[in-house]
């Protein structure tokens, strides 16, 4: 048979494919490359947990803001509007407006409304809560991505992990300053609120407890420049961050300080204007993430819908806050569950020692196979070589990430692939010993070995798939390399080497040097 049988062609195609697509990764030329995991190149790895209950609480708070605004607009008088972890409640003062109120509420989707004697209690429906839960994690991922994009970090990766976790990987982070800045940017809820000061009771703020304040529907919040200084604010915000359209860093020419200037959308601008017009002389606090930045007195009606947050910001801080505000607030609070940072020098060392291990084991196997099997060993080693190239190629093509356990996975695949050829060679030898000719022996070897190799590889493949689906982080990386390695090794070790034997079979049959080809002497039983 000549060289171009279907099996050698498959082998050649895999070889060319492997060679072409692994060159960019090996020599650093243009083209798809393997992404190195953070453990190999250094960087910051953050696992965030999404606080679902906090997310629902904040939805109730914005619902209250909306109801407050809508009822004021339609001249419906309500009192003791209050939002909590799991409901919004208020009292309708003018019973004759009940129909108008009910109609207004019915426009808001996903609510369970109950009212007894004008006392309203509003909760979200089960479906709405489920929707909030599923959408809040996606919203958080989008927001974080947005922020990192604007911030301009190289190749950040933000992915969902498990049900309520988010994994953020930042390869570009090298110093602790960078780390802190990135962390601030990601974690910051960036919930901007404008809240009215409860001027009647504010004088007593220092002696008031949180519970007492909440009885009046108020909250006590600290100032950012001095946490000991507190102020009493009305619990339902006038405006929340969802009405924000833009935020950027600016300079206040009067105070010569860095400020963050923001712009509101038309609805926000109208509410802002109405409120400032009706409350001249009173104070309004600008609150970011439950800290009061300033609480200026209102001197006149403020139209146009723009304002500014002042505080003694550093340049970086002001920039980060502006980015966070612009990219939207995180309505669901995030919790930092895990933080792993790997210095670039450790990554380089890991690569070095893994490569030594990889080449070392490769060398041992080459020598051993050739020593034990003769030319059959050379064929097995060539299949192994193509196998490794193809793994690199597949990984760069799919954009898979190579991690330390992934490297271990490759080393293990080498073992598995060589096992396939050992099984085949042993079977061929067996047939040769029983006196069959070379061509028959090769056919016998492949026929019987393939079945066992197939069963064995299939079970391992099942494990790899399960690991990929249920594993996390490094285990996933390991499962990918193992899975790719097994599939490729079936092609190279079973099909590829068979093709070479089909091509050379007649030639081997004609020579008497079995010891050279298979490492044994014929007929020695």
């Amino acid at each position: 048979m000549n060289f171009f049988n279907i099996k050698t062609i498959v082998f050649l195609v895999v070889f060319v494919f492997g060679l072409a697509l692994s060159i960019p990764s090996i020599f650093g030329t243009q083209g798809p490359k393997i992404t190195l995991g953070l453990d190999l190149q250094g960087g910051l790895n953050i696992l965030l947990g999404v606080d679902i209950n906090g997310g629902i609480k904040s939805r109730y708070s914005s619902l209250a803001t909306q109801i407050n605004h809508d009822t004021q607009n339609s001249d419906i008088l309500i009192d003791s509007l209050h939002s909590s972890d799991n409901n919004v409640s208020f009292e309708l003062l003018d019973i004759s407006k009940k129909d108008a109120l009910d109609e207004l509420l019915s426009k808001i989707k996903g609510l369970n409304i109950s009212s007894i004697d004008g006392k309203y209690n509003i909760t979200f429906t089960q479906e709405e809560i489920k929707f909030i839960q599923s959408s809040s994690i996606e919203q958080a991922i989008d927001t974080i991505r947005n922020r990192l994009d604007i911030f301009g970090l190289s190749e950040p990766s933000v992915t969902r992990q498990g049900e309520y976790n988010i994994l953020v990987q930042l390869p570009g982070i090298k110093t602790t300053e960078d780390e802190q800045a990135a962390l601030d940017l990601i974690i910051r809820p960036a919930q901007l609120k404008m809240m009215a000061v409860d001027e009647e009771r504010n004088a007593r703020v220092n002696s008031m407890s949180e519970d007492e304040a909440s009885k009046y529907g108020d909250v006590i919040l600290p100032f950012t420049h001095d946490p000991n200084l507190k102020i009493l604010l009305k619990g339902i915000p006038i405006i929340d961050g969802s009405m924000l359209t833009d935020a950027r860093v600016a300079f206040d020419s009067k105070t010569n300080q860095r400020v963050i200037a923001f712009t509101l959308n038309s609805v926000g601008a109208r509410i802002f204007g109405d409120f400032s017009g009706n409350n001249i002389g009173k104070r309004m606090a600008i609150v970011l993430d439950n800290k009061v930045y300033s609480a200026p007195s209102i001197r006149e009606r403020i139209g146009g819908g723009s304002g500014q947050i002042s505080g003694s910001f550093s340049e970086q801080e002001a920039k980060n806050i502006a980015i966070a505000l612009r990219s939207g607030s995180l309505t669901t609070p995030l919790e930092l569950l895990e933080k792993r940072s790997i210095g670039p020098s450790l990554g380089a060392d890991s690569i070095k020692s893994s490569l030594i291990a990889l080449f070392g084991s490769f060398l041992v196997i080459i020598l051993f196979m050739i020593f034990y099997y003769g030319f059959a060993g050379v064929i097995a080693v060539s299949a192994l070589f193509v196998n490794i190239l193809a793994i690199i190629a597949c990984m760069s093509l799919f954009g898979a990430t190579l991690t330390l356990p992934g490297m271990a996975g490759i080393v293990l695949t080498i073992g598995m692939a060589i096992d396939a050829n050992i099984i085949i060679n042993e079977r061929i030898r067996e047939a040769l010993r029983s006196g069959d000719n070379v061509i028959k022996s090769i056919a016998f070897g492949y026929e019987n070995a393939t079945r066992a190799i197939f069963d064995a590889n299939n079970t391992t493949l099942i494990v790899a798939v399960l690991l990929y689906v249920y594993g996390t982080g490094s285990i996933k990386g390991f499962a990918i390399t193992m899975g790719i390695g097994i599939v490729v090794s079936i092609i190279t070790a079973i099909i590829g080497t068979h093709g070479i034997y089909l091509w050379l079979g007649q030639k081997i049959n004609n020579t008497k040097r079995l010891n050279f080809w298979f490492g044994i002497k014929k007929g020695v039983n």
Partner: protein
Amino acid sequence: MDFFRHDKIYDFVKYSKYGLIFSCILIVGIIILFFIKGVNFGIDFVGGSVIQLQYTNKDAPISQIREILNDSQYFKNSNITEFGAKNEIVIKFPFVPSDVKINISDEIKEVLKPTGEFDVRRVDIVGPKAGVELAKKGVISLALALIAMMIYVSFRYEWRFALAGIVALVHDVFISAAAIIVFDVDLSLDVIAALLTLIGYSINDTIIIFDRIREQMLLKKFNDINFVINDAVSKTLSRTLLTSLTVFFVIFILFVFGSEILKGFTLPMLVGSIVGTYSSMFIAPKLAILFGFNIQEYYEKEARKQRKKQEKEKMYQMYEKGRI
């Protein structure tokens, strides 16, 4: 080149008896060890912080570091160990909720300034919450992997063989996992990855032998299962040992030259590559017999299968002819 006499049939089943006794003693020993010494859960599972430092131009002054850290308020309860080289150390301490906010990297640089110049190579902080989910997922994937393999092997071979294979597998994983207790390695995600790989490797080894057993049974119709097993294990002996040797070499090189971080992976694998080979030769086939595998029944079943297949073919042919 040839290592073994390929025409000799060794009495593996006879030695399996001692193998089973040996394994039982080993497992009891491990259980005792487990209760006496216990497993060191790494921060992946229980939460906590790890800092890895490398000193430039000198060995790490461990006793000095220990003294300083004991006096500091933040790192008081930490555990300091050498990591791979004399100039590299790892500091571990339990999780404190405020950890994630404080910049540990800066903190340690400040505290350890008097001990000389060093480089902070790695800082891991894991909250206890993350670990619970990891453990849950680990158990789920392990259980599913076992069930899936059981189904596959039952389908391809016979349920008693499947069960024997799985029991041998659990045996291998158990003994390899014990290696981390003996050598004081923390139970981390890498160890889990190693154990999961081992599952793949160990079943691979067992299946190759099972395949030969099935082949011999269908080919030669021996009536003595012991003989079939001895024959199959002997015939595959050279392959089994060769493969085990290559795998062992690969992992051994990884163990010696790979970075210290990989120890959690390579150590259980190193033990597993030996135990896996032993169990697929001495434990798994013997267990299949103990579980009541009956060779006559197997032949009858196979014959029935064959008959059914032939009948089907016959029907099919008749059907085709009828149409023509």
